[in-house]
């Protein structure tokens, strides 16, 4: 019998010092308001009982298609959304129910890089002001020191420090994303949550940013929770990867295991759907899923994937499969493996 994540957690607890972030049974439901009346008629189960952990210094990739809840998970962890249920343990401390004031010290430790390089920087402020803001909020450093730090950070992300006084609109997308990364770094965080940080960028720019993130991780000893839909990108940057579907965690595995030997039918389909990187490989047989992702406001009963699963069984439609550890570090939520 495979261990569930709960059990895994116990084993993890033994060397707790390795764990930076632990998410346990996290739920985030959004009320569905109907029409102009704004009455709650149901809930979008954006994140429904998701558990995973991120070890210090590693990059944990969270992949899934749109609407799978990966971004919501990230935002709930950083408390942009109030979790509906579940725990978020940061360095062993549950931060999921702290109020804004209690949370403030943790704000320095967890930072986020956003997807859209155009909307993630306040268009009315200069880059310098944007980057100094975290210091002002936390009342850190003198004016001169702040300036110096900002210049240093700009250099770190490959930008000319002289551009401090420029406005975001004067920069290209890639440059803005670097500024976004610099802002995340201002407070010397331990964990950076990247919410699709490169998906809005041109391919040639995307690789620059990925490389910078790589470098910074080494330089600053950062831990990344990297959220993306591009399996290639996730594979490149992550150490371990979690696959989400309709608010549920389907599979968690170290990167190589996941890509070479995916257990979950969804993961298999997902990997197979990725366009091949060379025309010669195109001929290979691929798994084509039927239909679209169901609406998270009305997810299927049982295994949420059963409506599209090529290997669906009767009890998939009734029972929700638990996330179990099939091999060390490789968790799957699928009735096939019971």
């Amino acid at each position, binding site marked *: 019998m495979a261990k569930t994540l709960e059990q895994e957690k116990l084993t993890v607890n033994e060397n707790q010092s390795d764990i930076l972030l632990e998410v346990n049974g996290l739920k985030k439901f959004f009320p569905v308001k109907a029409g102009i009346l*704004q009455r709650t008629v149901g809930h979008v189960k954006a994140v429904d009982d998701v558990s995973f952990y991120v070890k210090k210094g590693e990059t944990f990739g969270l992949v899934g298609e749109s609407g799978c809840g990966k971004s919501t998970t990230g*935002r709930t962890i*950083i408390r*942009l959304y109030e979790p509906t249920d579940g725990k978020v343990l940061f360095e062993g401390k549950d931060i999921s129910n702290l109020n*804004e004031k209690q*949370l*403030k010290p943790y*704000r*320095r430790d*967890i*930072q*986020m890089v*956003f*997807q*859209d390089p*155009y*909307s*993630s*920087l*306040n*268009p*009315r402020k200069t880059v310098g002001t*944007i980057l100094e*803001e*975290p210091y002002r*909020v*936390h009342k850190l450093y003198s004016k001169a020191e702040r300036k110096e730090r900002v210049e240093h950070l700009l*250099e*770190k992300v*490959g*930008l*000319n420090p*002289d*551009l401090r006084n*420029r*406005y975001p*609109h*004067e*920069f*290209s997308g890639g*440059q803005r994303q670097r500024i*976004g990364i610099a*802002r995340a770094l*201002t*407070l010397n965080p331990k964990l950076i949550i990247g919410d699709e940080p490169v998906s809005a960028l041109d391919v040639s720019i995307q690789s*620059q940013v990925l*490389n*910078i993130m790589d*470098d910074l991780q080494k*330089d600053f000893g950062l831990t990344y929770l990297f959220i993306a839909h591009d399996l290639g990108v996730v594979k490149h940057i992550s150490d371990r990867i979690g696959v989400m579907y309709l608010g549920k965690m389907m599979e968690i595995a170290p990167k190589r295991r996941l890509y070479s030997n995916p257990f979950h039918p969804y993961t298999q389909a997902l990997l197979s759907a990725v366009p091949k990187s060379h025309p010669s490989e195109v001929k290979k047989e691929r798994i084509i899923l039927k239909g679209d992702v169901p609406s998270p406001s009305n997810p299927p009963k049982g295994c949420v994937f059963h409506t599209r699963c090529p290997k669906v069984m009767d009890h998939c439609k009734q029972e929700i499969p638990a996330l179990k550890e099939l091999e060390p570090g490789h968790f799957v939520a699928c009735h096939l493996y019971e």
Partner: protein
Amino acid sequence: MAKPEINLPNDINAQTLGKRRSLLSIIVAKFFQNKLAVIALVVLSIIITSAILAPLITPHDPNLQNLRHRLEPPGPEFWLGTDHLGRDLFSRLLYGGRVSLTVGFVAMIGAVSIGTTIGAIAGFFGGKVDAFLMRLVDVIISFPNIFLLITLVAVLEPSMEILILVFALLSWTGTSRLVRGEFLTLKNREFVLAARTIGMSNTRIIFGQILPSAMGPVIVAATLAVGNFILAESTLSFLGLGIQPPRASWGNMLTYSQSVTIFRNAVWYPTFPGLAILITVLCFNFIGDGLRDALDPRIVEK
């Protein structure tokens, strides 16, 4: 530590940033592309300046009656003629402009301040606060405005201050909806989320992050509102509820000239205050239109 693949940052920046253009300069440049708006701005500046400088410019005391020179046509002595009490129309027009513009501007500031505050609170906090405030807005909007104006002004006795107060109290709903809408969009913009992730306080987020970005449409609406208040004052004057004599306002000047006999025998009397209102409101509309284009956030993001 820059890696060779990244290339030297200095080179990149030198090449792609080009000449420095601040936001303001872009907005100004964009605004100046709209010829009508620029003309309107110039005309309005002249009007406002002459209203401010009225005591220096006007050749006569605006309230001095000269009963021997009633309804005189425009001429060297009275540039725009005189009214039915022999007062110099040009002087009254300038002084009336002070009153009308003051009503317009102060009422606008009042309405916009109330509207912005309420809209910001409703939009940012959402939930019950939002629901309550929006119901309030519903009530005020559903209240037939002109009726409320008539009743209120009748109750409170029409003075400039009361008029301003009533205008401000009744006209903030549009701004509040606008601001609320902007806040609803902006509060989920990533730069606001980013501000939250660094632990910034709500007040600071509202005033430091969201509000400046939401001001564009508000400024446009405010510009148009000034014109509308000037018009509203004239309509109330027509109904006998505007600025009271002997203080001149464009509205009451226009109203006092609404007589068949004056239209026939002294057509300059209704014409000048009418034109003053028309041109001023027109200017505000054109400027508002120009600002709408200039402040469109898309120009920055493209």
